[in-house]
């Protein structure tokens, strides 16, 4: 009786294994969705700790002091420069949605590549932004190219 049950179980596993292999495409999309969700959740937490003081909880920025991130043309056109800016700091004038900003942004060098990926995935996919996932590989490659 027991051995029969185990046999059935093994068969079932084998079957599901097979189905997994056959629709590989769908399966990876699903795991990407899960990963994206995780990045968004973690990114939101990190954003609250490191960014929201200035850029505000909904990414709206503060007057002409701190630029908005929500629907920010600068951010979405300069994701790589922004990743470098968060890691290493940024200064000088920038124009965001037609308004100039000139407040230096201190870098947060202790952020890991994963944390940066989570923050940027959150920021570039919230409040009307829809830029897709930022991977740790992307962050790693970007940081190698930062102008020092």
């Amino acid at each position: 009786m027991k051995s029969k049950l185990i046999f059935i179980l093994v068969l079932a596993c084998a079957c599901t294994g097979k189905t997994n292999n056959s629709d590989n495409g769908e399966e990876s999309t699903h795991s990407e969705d899960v990963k994206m969700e995780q990045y968004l959740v973690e990114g939101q937490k990190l954003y609250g700790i490191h960014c929201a003081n200035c850029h505000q909880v909904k990414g709206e920025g503060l007057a002409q002091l701190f630029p908005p991130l929500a629907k920010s043309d600068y951010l979405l056109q300069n994701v790589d420069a922004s990743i470098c800016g968060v890691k290493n700091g940024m200064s000088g004038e920038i124009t965001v949605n037609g308004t100039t900003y000139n407040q230096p942004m201190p870098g947060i060098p202790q952020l890991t590549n994963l944390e940066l990926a989570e923050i940027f995935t959150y920021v570039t996919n919230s409040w009307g932004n829809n830029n897709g996932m930022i991977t740790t590989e992307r962050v790693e490659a970007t940081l190698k190219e930062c102008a020092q």
Partner: protein
Amino acid sequence: MRVTFVLYIVLLTMASACNLQPKEEKLKIYGRSEVSDAGDTIYHKIADYKFVDQDSAWVTPETFEGKVYVADFFFTSCPTICPIMKTQMLRVYDKYKANPEVMILSHSIDPKHDTVAVLKEFAERLGVKSDKWHFITGKKDDIFKLGQTSYMVAATEDGSEPGGYVHSGAFILVDKERRIRGFYDGTVAEQVDKLMIDIDKLLKEYEK
């Protein structure tokens, strides 16, 4: 029996109504007070000061004559609590924009970096008017001393802190007699709600 009971209830209601009155009345006066020879109470007051604001104009206690004001300590390049304090102070500014009796005084604790020009640009970018919200700079020692002894808040240099300074995120409510009437955490929205309720209460003390 029933009559006594009703009477008792009526008395109780009256008593509790009386009790409510003093609660509404006045805000506490902070700091150590002394009694003068004549028997009057002398309260802790903000000491004399003279600083320069974002318009290069002198700011002294006379600037706030006949006004209540909210004071804080910050610096423009502060990456930690200042931006959130400024976000919250902006709420106070917006609420009392049209009320000439209420003003705001922000002291820079980094006068070396926060020159008049830097403060001017900061205020303009924040979108606030200098006759309502003064950003002042001056001698660092004077500002720190005034913060510690008059406003009773801490502000010190600390190289290990991001930005180089530790300071309190307090908003301090000062009345027309230069007395402190409340301390609030300027980084917490609910505390700033309380501040605005207290400003209204304080203004009521001067109505009559």
